[in-house]
């Protein structure tokens, strides 16, 4: 009798802490970078480590897969750094990770999956966040 091959499992890590005690990091593919950093280019597999506490006005976005007008007016539309800082001040989250991670639009999906995603995962893991919030732009 042929064996049915199951669809790929969904990776899942249970959340067992309280948000008020958790360290939170943002990871985005919205193409966010800080002033002084190299902007993203087309099909760019590089990523930027955006320091926690960076001045929001110094954050820029690369026009790529979306109209950047809203993000240029208010970075929180795609990368909610100020909203996260406010939640910290209000005691709703415990800490913010030392860095957030940002990528641009990458179309080399195999290389993204087999190499870059592991590099990013390693960088993120070293910051020991309890929660990662992902945004796509």
């Amino acid at each position, binding site marked *: 009798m042929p064996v049915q091959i199951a669809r790929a499992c*969904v*990776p*899942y*890590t*249970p959340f067992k802490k309280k948000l008020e005690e958790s360290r939170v990091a943002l990871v985005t593919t919205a193409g966010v970078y800080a002033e002084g950093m190299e902007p993203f280019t087309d099909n760019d597999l590089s990523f930027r480590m955006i320091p926690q506490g960076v001045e929001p006005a110094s954050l820029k976005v690369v026009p790529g897969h979306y109209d950047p007008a809203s993000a240029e*007016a208010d970075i929180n539309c795609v990368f909610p750094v100020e909203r996260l800082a406010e939640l910290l001040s209000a005691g709703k989250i415990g800490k913010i990770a030392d860095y957030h991670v940002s990528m641009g639009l990458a179309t080399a999906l195999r290389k993204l999956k087999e190499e870059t995603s592991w590099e990013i995962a390693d960088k*993120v893991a070293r910051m020991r966040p309890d*929660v990662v919030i992902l*945004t796509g732009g």
Partner: protein
Amino acid sequence: MGIASVLITVSPEESAQAGPSRALYPKPFEVGQSLGPPGNTELQTRILTDAMDLLQHPSEPGTIVTRDYS
């Protein structure tokens, strides 16, 4: 050992193919405004906290929860 994560997506069909652990689709927003329009602090906070709430009140892994913010 992994890290608990939640995705805020405004491309739910595309995101579903990637099988996110937890995901929020904040209707009716589109790419470039995943957390809503500029300057709407209260709405951005609400979307962010609703996404984080999925960590404490999860659906079946791979489910994209749709909430309407219009």
